[in-house]
């Protein structure tokens, strides 16, 4: 669901290095008011401007859901990534104003769990931070098992240990402290819930271990960042009825680009669900990247229709019946 007016302006109040690769950013509202409340495990999408457009990176909120005077996010610098985290590390300074989307929770806590078990690796600890603040207030028991590479990567875990004591276990690879996930999930009482955030191998290992112990999938949770709204590579589209050709930038949907150019396309939900903006594809040289829930799999494969509110194209030519 991509609404161009859905962003919040925040000022970077503080930047601190917490490991050689991770910087923690403290964000406050530009007008001194509180930011919108959120729930533990939420993330925000940060719009990171760069020379030829905008990156949209999702970062977990690691501050307490019960203090919305500021948000905190941790950004791990990924050298071979698209460039968003490098830009955050190099080009963003204290005092700068950034645009973010409102918090979204794709990793919510179970309200029914009797015991919460967290497995995390490296920067994967960040969503857990806000979840622990929520659990402490609620008084539900939890354990955190955090694996890091070495001493200089352990600071977030040590902060949590000071805050929550023995409930937080730290495993350092450099001194051969191995996190044995199968041992963590063994013999846990019914009503325990498992949360995993970290490298893909850790997620898969935790899922396999829990299933091997007879856990149902409803008690296994892992963080998976889904794309919010319509963002990707730029492309151009020709609207057949007016003959106009429109450039769709990386952080715009086709619908938004058409509206910005003064064209009206009928819409209802703007989220790829209602079917209202369904449009025929008249010419295509390339492929359509369907991200809607409306078209059937057959429709998507045929590439004769597109939902301009969310779907994009990777093509040299696209003409639609609008």
């Amino acid at each position, binding site marked *: 669901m991509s609404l161009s007016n*859905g962003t919040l302006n925040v000022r970077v109040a503080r930047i601190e290095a917490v490991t050689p690769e991770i910087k923690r950013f403290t964000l406050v509202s530009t007008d001194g008011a509180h930011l919108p409340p959120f729930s533990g495990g939420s993330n925000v999408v940060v719009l990171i401007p760069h020379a030829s457009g905008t990156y949209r990176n999702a970062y977990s909120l690691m501050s307490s859901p019960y203090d919305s005077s500021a948000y905190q996010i941790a950004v791990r610098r990924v050298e071979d990534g698209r460039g968003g985290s490098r830009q955050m590390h190099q080009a963003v300074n204290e005092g700068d104003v950034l645009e973010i989307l409102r918090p979204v929770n794709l990793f919510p806590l179970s309200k029914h769990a009797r015991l919460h078990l967290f497995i995390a690796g490296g920067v994967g600890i960040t969503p857990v931070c806000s979840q622990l603040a929520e659990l402490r207030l609620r008084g539900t028991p939890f354990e955190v098992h955090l694996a890091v590479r070495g001493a200089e990567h352990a600071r977030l875990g040590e902060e949590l240990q000071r805050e929550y004591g023995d409930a937080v276990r730290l495993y350092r690879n450099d001194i051969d402290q191995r996190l044995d996930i199968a041992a963590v999930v063994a013999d846990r009482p019914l009503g325990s819930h498992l949360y995993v955030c970290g490298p893909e191998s850790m997620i898969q290992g935790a899922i396999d271990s829990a299933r091997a112990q007879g856990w149902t999938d409803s008690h296994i949770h892992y963080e998976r960042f889904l794309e919010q709204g319509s963002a990707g590579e730029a492309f151009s589209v020709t609207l057949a009825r007016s003959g106009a050709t429109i450039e769709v930038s990386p952080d715009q949907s086709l619908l938004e680009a058409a509206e910005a150019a003064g064209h009206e396309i009928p819409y209802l939900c703007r989220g790829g669900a209602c079917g209202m903006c369904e449009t025929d594809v008249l010419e295509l040289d390339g492929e359509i990247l369907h991200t809607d*829930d*409306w078209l059937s799999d057959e429709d998507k494969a045929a590439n004769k229709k597109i939902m301009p509110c969310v779907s994009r194209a990777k093509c040299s030519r696209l003409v639609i019946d609008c």
Partner: protein
Amino acid sequence: MTIQFRPDETYRDDYTYANSPECIARAPFPFPDDEYMYSMNLEPHVSVGDAALKAVFDIDEHYISECRDRAITLEKDPGMHYVSAPHMMEAQWDLLELIMESYANDYPEYFSLEKDGSRWHWTNKLLGIDDRFTFGDPATLPYEPMEYITRQAQGDWVLQEERDGTLYWGAGIATQRADYSLRFNLGMAWHEFHGPVPLVKETGMLDRALKFLLRLRCGHPVRRLNWSLTVNPRLDVSAESLPDWAPDRTTVTAENAGKLVYLRIELQPLHRLPRSNAIVFPIRTYLLNLEDIATNPAWAKRMHRVLKSLNQDLVDYKGFTRYRDAAVEWLSQFDDGRDEEVAKAG
């Protein structure tokens, strides 16, 4: 905006409920076409115009009497029309905050909310309420937070919890429900409580709507309209009170349908709630009898066509099999069979 309230009207017994012409004109007429079929009529819940779609949560001239009718229904059957699972307390506070902030913003002449940290001061001039309480502490309110605030709100309210990739009914207040039981539905998942709705599962619409709602974001509410019919302006048409109202369905004739048959329009603005991650599903009901509808000739003509062509499965599901024909016959006087005016009715 000043509303001329009708504080003394009744929704039972002598049924003195009535709409002013202004109140009829501001209702969200639900039929965009001459034929009705379920659709994903979801749109962003942004403020539009000066009528029912202007406020986050709409109130109108029936506010005071509707709140009183709710109190009567709740008192009659304690534990029947307000229920909440224990783990929904966080979502209840979210809902209380959302309603209080929305009412205070949209209707500052009637409602105010002052926050001093977690010590809040709420005034509701329409119902003569002036309360101080601690946000997050249920002991400082006379009812649970959801019951407290929805006793002061128009419409029914359901809180849905997101779990295991679906939505569960976790709490609700329903004193104006169209023929179902809140207690029965509590704890049901999305596909369970929509199971009885005819013709939607086959189209894949239930799956698509669920996916869309699971992506619903805080601060970006969406709305949809639904509708049904009722005999008499009765709000409490729950499954539990069926013996009280079901016999009325046999009293409708082609002569009295204009007075007796009411269109129930349901405006449903859905919000994601910030702390609990729950989704609130409000059902704000507008009751207009066919005579009210007929004050707008284009509405009457369209409604005639909708009811006449409506799929029988939907007629049965919505519960007006016994009097559909009488309503159609009464409305037929407004339909000359020509099409030009109807185009404007949506």
